[in-house]
């Protein structure tokens, strides 16, 4: 157990260092969501005057959760790309040959993705506070948002890792980038569900990322709501289970094909 934890920690530290050293992995996680946050807040900020828009201090406060969601999804994607690069370069093969449990290889990578999620949550909270957005539920609310974002990044990273293991190709994982946008636009990450247009609204109602977005947003714009939090946690658990199943199957496939 202790030895496994040491392996996870060592691989996790490697993936964290790798990510922060490569600007091409960091840039999409920080630059694009920040840019989109700025232009959406500035461009669609008048939306808070629409009838039915939830009471918020401003559109920036509402949009923080959306930016975090976008960033964590890209973090998951970037984690998958880095994992696929390791596979392409033969590093993962050397790990497979080492006397360590296979799951630690995936967990080590996910630790790096979780660190990115944590960074993204802190980054956007800082941006929000810097530009005048309040965290309605205070420190506790901010902590909930940080935990949910970090956990979701890790969960999404599990799916990215599974695709990396299955395909063994960084370009395939990179090609999933547009899907990230599709999933987010078909959720309530960027706009209140009730004000979305069909058919996006109908899909967003059942999209687990809508529940996570609401869970992250709730403590930022209102008092902590246990129901929103529970739905968010259940959604994350669902994505974790999906990621685990896919990763286990992909790992078996990778060991078979080499």
């Amino acid at each position, binding site marked *: 157990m202790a030895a496994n934890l040491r392996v996870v920690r060592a691989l996790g530290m490697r993936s964290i260092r790798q990510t922060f050293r*490569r*600007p*091409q992995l960091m*840039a*999409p996680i920080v*630059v*694009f969501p920040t*840019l*989109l946050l*700025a*232009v*959406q*807040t*500035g*461009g*669609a*900020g*008048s*939306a808070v*005057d*629409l*009838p039915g828009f939830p009471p918020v201090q401003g*559109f920036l406060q509402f949009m923080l959760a959306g930016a975090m969601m976008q960033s964590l999804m890209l973090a998951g994607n970037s984690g998958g790309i880095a994992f696929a690069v390791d596979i392409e370069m033969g590093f993962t093969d050397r790990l497979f040959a080492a006397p360590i449990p296979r799951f630690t290889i995936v967990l080590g990578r996910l630790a790096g993705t979780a660190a990115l999620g944590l960074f993204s949550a802190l980054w956007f909270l800082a941006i929000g506070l810097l530009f005048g957005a309040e965290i309605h539920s205070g420190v506790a609310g901010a902590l909930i948002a940080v935990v949910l974002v970090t956990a979701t990044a890790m969960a999404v990273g599990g799916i990215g890792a599974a695709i990396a293991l299955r395909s063994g190709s960084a370009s395939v994982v990179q*090609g999933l*980038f*547009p899907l990230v*946008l*599709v999933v*987010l*636009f*078909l959720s309530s990450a*960027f*706009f209140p569900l009730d*004000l*979305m*247009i069909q*058919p*996006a*609204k109908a899909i967003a109602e059942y999209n687990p990322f809508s529940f996570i977005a609401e869970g992250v947003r709730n403590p930022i714009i209102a008092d902590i709501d246990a129901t929103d939090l529970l739905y968010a946690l259940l959604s994350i658990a669902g994505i974790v289970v999906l990621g685990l199943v896919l990763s286990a199957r992909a790992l078996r496939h990778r060991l078979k094909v080499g």
Partner: protein
Amino acid sequence: MGRAAALPEWRANLATIAALMARSRNELLRVPGAAIPGVLAPTIFFLGLNGVFGALTQLNGFEVGAYESFVVPVSMLQGAGFTGAAAGVNLARDIEGGWVDRLLVSPAPRWVLLAGTVLSASTRALIPATFVFAIALPLGAGWPGIDGLFVTYLMVAAMAAVAACWGSALALRFKSQSAAPLMQAGMMALVFTTTAYAPLALLQPWLRTVAEVNPVTEVIEAARQGFVGAVTWPGTWPGIVALFGLLLVLGAWALREMRRTAR
């Protein structure tokens, strides 16, 4: 070789540009999948923005009936931005692979080499633009009329040229595909810090100030005319002037970087 040497200079330059454009076309024909991200991204943005922000038309001061009509030229120009920036990424790949070194030792003038990349991007940008337009029409975007469509496509082609100059300058400066996020983000910022989401009066004050000085606002307004009303010369020429200015500045920068690379 002898035949090429016998060509007048202007014809040799045209032949070189045509050859570089043919190379770009061949890339597209041989790896059609490479064009998919450039087509998908603006299409997803178009569908996503409609689904998410479509209710903005209920705001006072939003004079357009359908948000699809308002946002379709933005997505077409965004596609142009992506395509132009992708030309920069491809150039960076060619620098990494040594292909550009071989071009630079050829007797072709530097501006001819740049023109090949830029014109290829302009032509390629018509693909995502047409795809987005074809999706937008059945979803409720208004028919812009032949004149409106012509102006929109003119803006799309020129915007792709601007983006290709930007991407090429960065590729030549950094000589690495790692600069790709900067190429894409720069174009995204240029297109979205305009009246992309809402009319000028409804933008937040800071964005209104930026949009007023961002030349691409004039480009978007010119491209949008036919979709939301009538096409007029006063609505068109500021867009042409803005694109001409951007091309001049970014083209000069890209050329300077190319000369620096050759040294």
